[in-house]
């Protein structure tokens, strides 16, 4: 779906990336200054790379050698910025129609009514942008980009200027459109939580270079990438299926390849797939199955790898069945338990450690 090979010089900063990605949602992840926005600008056609080519869904948007450089208006990439950037002189409805009107009738597959219902914009149509909340603005911006009938949606930190509550609201809408409209999305973020919740594959960027490309779970649980993915947010992502709800205790049971998890009630139907993120610091280890303990989730697993840095805090990579999981424990525990590759252990996860932000639709 996306094939990129570009080089670009921006002052002292050099962007030099080449990757291919085939996934409904590709996460473009990196610290600020890693070159994420430069790359997005090259994709959108608002900056011209010195060399290279960009192909989206088989259509060449840029090819220096062949002299192809489509202007932004002919690339048909829906660009959603960090700030909604709605046109202040137009009402919500006119904002939504801006790109729709420019799109040729033959390319129109997404209709205004569909987007208005999907993003819950019906009540906002007659308002000017300055009468909208941050979350509403961003929803309108997403709807406006969708109605331009894009080949691909480029979202550059779309939640960064929103508060926590709004983030969650907009994130849910993004999940909705991902699942119902089948438009590939490139989602740029420096937030592990957002990327792991939305993306299927990930492109990890640092200092203008690609560090890793691949499956989200795979890349995010690699110990050698820890300095880039961040220590604090270290964790693993598990794709699971809802098997049962327990309304009495307000719990939901999720099944995945390595076993079952009990988490606080998830708003999903039995049989639906959800994605949970388990932070490494929420996982404890035991050598034998503990008795008389409040922790609900006890998963038999094996140690796959123990990070060998000398710090007092150590990340241990586990395999629960075939699913990778990370546990963050003290070096002292590593030594006392004699943790080593291949050792069978029990991973303990408190059900309350799953908050709303760590569970999302897969």
């Amino acid at each position, binding site marked *: 779906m996306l094939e990129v090979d570009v080089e670009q010089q921006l002052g002292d900063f050099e962007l030099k990336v080449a990757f291919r990605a085939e996934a409904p949602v590709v996460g473009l992840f990196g610290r600020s200054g890693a070159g994420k926005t430069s790359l997005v600008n090259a994709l*959108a*056609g*608002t900056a011209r790379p010195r060399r290279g080519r960009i192909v989206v869904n088989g259509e060449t948007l840029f090819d220096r050698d062949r002299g192809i450089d489509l*202007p*932004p*208006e*002919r*690339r*048909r*990439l*829906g*660009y959603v*910025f960090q*700030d909604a*950037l709605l*046109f*202040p*002189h137009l009402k919500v409805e006119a904002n939504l129609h*801006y*790109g729709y009107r*420019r*799109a040729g009738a033959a390319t129109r597959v997404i209709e205004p009514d569909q987007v208005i219902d999907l993003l819950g914009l019906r009540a906002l149509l007659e308002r*000017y942008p*300055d*009468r909208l909340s941050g979350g509403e603005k961003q929803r309108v911006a997403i709807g*406006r*980009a969708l109605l*331009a009938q894009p080949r691909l949606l480029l979202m550059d930190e779309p939640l960064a200027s929103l508060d926590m509550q709004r983030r969650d609201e907009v994130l849910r809408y993004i999940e909705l459109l991902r699942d119902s409209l089948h438009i590939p999305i490139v989602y740029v973020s420096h937030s592990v939580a957002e990327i792991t919740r939305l993306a299927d594959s990930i492109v990890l960027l640092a200092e203008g270079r690609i560090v890793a490309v691949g499956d989200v779970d795979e890349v995010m649980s690699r110990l050698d990438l820890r300095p880039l993915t961040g220590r604090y947010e270290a964790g693993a992502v598990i794709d699971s299926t809802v098997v049962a709800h327990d309304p009495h205790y307000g719990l939901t049971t999720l099944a995945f390849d390595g076993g079952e998890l009990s988490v606080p009630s998830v708003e999903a139907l039995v049989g639906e797939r959800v994605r949970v993120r388990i932070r490494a610091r929420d996982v404890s280890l035991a050598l034998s199955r503990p008795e008389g303990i409040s922790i609900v989730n006890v998963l038999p697993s094996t140690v796959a790898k123990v990070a060998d840095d000398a710090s007092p805090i150590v990340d241990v990579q586990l395999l629960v069945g075939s699913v990778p999981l990370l546990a963050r424990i003290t070096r002292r525990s590593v030594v006392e338990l004699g943790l080593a590759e291949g050792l069978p252990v029990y991973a303990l996860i408190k059900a309350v450690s799953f908050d709303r932000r760590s569970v999302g639709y897969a």
Partner: protein
Amino acid sequence: MLSDDELGIIALSLKVALTSVAFSLPLAIAVAYLLARREFPGKTLLDAVVHLPLVLPPVVVGFALLVLFGRQGWIGARLADWFGIVVAFRWTGAALAAAIMGFPLMVRAIRLSFAAIDRRLETVGRTLGGSRAWVFLSITLPLGLPGIISGVVLAFARSLGEFGATITFVSNIPGETQTLPLAIYSLTQTPNGDAQALRLSIVAVVLSIVALVAAQWLARHPRFGGAERARG
């Protein structure tokens, strides 16, 4: 209340001012856009030339126009030969002088309002499928409207008051080039003309105030300005 002569003077003044504004506006918008949005060689020079009428003595501008646009002038002779257009000592010449004197004010106001528009709004317009020209018409121009309105009013008021360049270029011909300020000047040089000079001066004051109030009203009007809308 006003004599036919006086009404004629006011009508001529308005005609000259409106013509000068109408013809200089498209050029002023283009120059303002270039100065606010583009980088090109000679930008500083263009900026300086545009501002020249603001700092030069008006008489010098009038003299330059006379040299260039007079019947024997470098441009004036060609206009007369090729198109049969003569501006020297005509009301059209007065409009030309007024347009040039008001141009810097118009460009400044419009340029400031263009520069204040978030460029990324234009980028968004492009990514939504708008060509450069369409984005300019649908985003840049409407968002710059408050500045365009104030530029028009400033230039209009400046045109109504133009004196030095006009009298130097097209002289002071009653019924042809004698605008309000020129008529007032003539009256002050005439014995017993003071009373009429005062009447015309009051007219000039009223016209200027009407122009300013109209500008304020337009800037607040939701369809034209940003003020009312910004406040919601």
